[in-house]
């Protein structure tokens, strides 16, 4: 890799041994992918994936101490993934003990480290940092050093920014030196689609199911999706953006997609159209039967598959305000239809702290809470990552949560029926 004088000086240790190791990490990392240079980060804010003070990540905190010790901190303010704990979310005394004393016993210390490294504020904890209410919204063409698979795929695809699927720690290291190695999704060539996905369903496909099917098929490749404009339109409005948020999260967690193009809708596809498709691209056709096949193949790892759910999580990734309003209306209608006044299963809806603040002050927010739904900023994934929660029958409409935990996946429509005491 050819470095500038400044970059070479950092690598040579002119700014300290720790910064030299940071640069060495990024150079080695970039060279593995054929990067020939480091390019400046141009986004205003960074986004980090590691938000949790898991005791098991002690080696990471030790590494961060080395950075802080030499003032090798982030050049950008940053947002970070959601907090792992929220007292509003139901938990029993044993879970409380396990969460606080064993699993997340480093949370307070870690948040102190984040303050020293440059976190944007006390409310900067969400996986959907790109919501208007949160304000970490890169511009088209911005070069980023983000991690969090769902945020990276959103920034690349819906916002047209340029970011690789960086790992935790690498995300921070880019912002510490202000540069990232140029390869993959930072290049025009790397943003070309090697798959054409033809959506031929008879109704609007469930975002998280469609994303899952595509992720499992194309893995880390870039898909160019045609046929979705029929269901989403050609305007990137709040509804379309919310759909693509969930769709993308599923492509990224069920596979390793970092960028997708939606014909006629996402910025690069709207501008460049099918010229984004690489020569020799493969084709994947998705119809109703294919979606059903994918759904039917999800393993159910509950010990007793017939057990009544004890908890429901909706909002992984965090919900948008549009989605919260939509759920509020649907739940009101379903409860009325089913002759109930409150949800019949403890149900937690998760969203960014800033989104929750705005939503809670509205009539829709009041109604949703009155229906018994708990609103939280928690990361459901972090709540579920322990044997106590794993043995609980938890349901979700998040395909990401399904992938990483024992939570059982249902479509939004099925979840609505279950939590409102419908026929299922």
């Amino acid at each position, binding site marked *: 890799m050819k470095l500038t004088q400044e970059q070479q000086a950092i690598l040579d240790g002119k700014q300290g041994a720790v910064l030299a190791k940071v640069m060495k990490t990024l150079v*080695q990392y970039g060279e593995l992918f054929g990067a020939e240079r480091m390019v400046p980060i141009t986004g205003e804010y960074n986004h980090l994936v590691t938000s949790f003070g898991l005791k098991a990540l002690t080696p990471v905190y030790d590494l961060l101490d080395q950075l802080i010790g030499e003032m090798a901190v982030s050049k950008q303010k940053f947002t970070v993934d959601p907090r792992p704990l929220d007292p509003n979310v139901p938990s029993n005394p044993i879970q409380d003990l396990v969460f606080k004393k064993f699993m997340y016993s480093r949370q307070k210390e870690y948040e102190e480290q984040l303050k020293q490294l440059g976190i944007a504020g006390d409310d900067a904890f969400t996986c959907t940092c790109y919501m208007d209410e949160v304000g970490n919204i890169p511009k088209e063409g911005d070069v980023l050093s983000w*991690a969090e698979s769902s945020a990276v795929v959103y920034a690349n695809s819906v916002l047209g920014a340029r970011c690789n699927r960086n*790992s935790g720690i690498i995300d921070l290291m880019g912002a510490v030196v202000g540069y990232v190695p140029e390869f*993959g999704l930072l290049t025009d060539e790397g943003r070309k689609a090697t798959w054409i996905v033809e959506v031929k369903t008879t109704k609007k496909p469930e975002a998280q199911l469609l994303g899952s099917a595509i992720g499992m098929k194309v*893995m880390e490749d870039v898909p160019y999706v045609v046929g979705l404009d029929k269901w989403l339109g050609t305007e990137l409005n709040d509804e379309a953006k919310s759909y693509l948020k969930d769709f993308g999260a599923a492509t990224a967690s069920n596979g390793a997609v970092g960028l997708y193009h939606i014909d006629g809708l996402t910025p690069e596809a709207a501008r460049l159209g099918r010229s984004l498709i690489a020569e020799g691209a493969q084709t994947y056709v998705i119809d109703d039967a294919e979606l059903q096949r994918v759904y039917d193949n999800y393993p159910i790892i509950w010990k007793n598959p017939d057990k009544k759910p004890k908890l429901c999580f909706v909002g992984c990734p965090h919900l948008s305000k549009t989605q919260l309003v939509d759920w509020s209306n649907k739940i009101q209608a379903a409860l009325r239809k089913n002759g109930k006044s409150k949800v019949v299963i403890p149900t937690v809806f998760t969203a960014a702290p800033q989104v929750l603040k705005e939503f809670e002050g509205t009539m829709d927010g009041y109604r949703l809470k009155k229906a018994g739904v708990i609103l939280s900023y928690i990361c459901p994934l972090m709540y579920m990552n322990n044997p106590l929660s794993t043995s609980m029958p938890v349901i979700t409409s998040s395909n990401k949560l399904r992938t990483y935990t024992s939570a059982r996946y249902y479509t939004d429509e099925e979840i609505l029926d279950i939590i409102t005491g419908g026929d299922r």
Partner: protein
Amino acid sequence: MKTFKGRVVAPGTISAEAVVSHEGLNTLASFQKALQFGDKTATCGDQNNKDLYNKKMAGKALCLPKTIGSTTGGLVLYCACSMGRQPACMLFSEPIDSLAAAGAVLADVWLDDVTMPVVDSLGDEFLAYVQDGMTITVKDGGVVEVA
């Protein structure tokens, strides 16, 4: 015995028993229980990985196409290395992905006493040939012997 040649991502030589995943390894889903709850054998916790689920990964020659899933992947691998719960080596049939690369590089640059040889681009034939329980020998220059 068959010999394969790939690219050295992290140097080192070692001999170990193979465990094989024919699909992408979801690093977070695979290692999270091992790291959180003291499982020194690093039993794979990824319910979606039919090849590896419930199999021990620590000290084994982990053969796979690539890693997938959460972008915590690299730091999870780094922690596994730091805590001595890493595979003996990681052998990729495809070019390495950005998350596994991050883990391998972080361990190489930031950990003094840890060696986890990593070789990528070993080809589809490697993954078609290697099976659980076979003996893998990683030699210098990205040479991998499977017996």
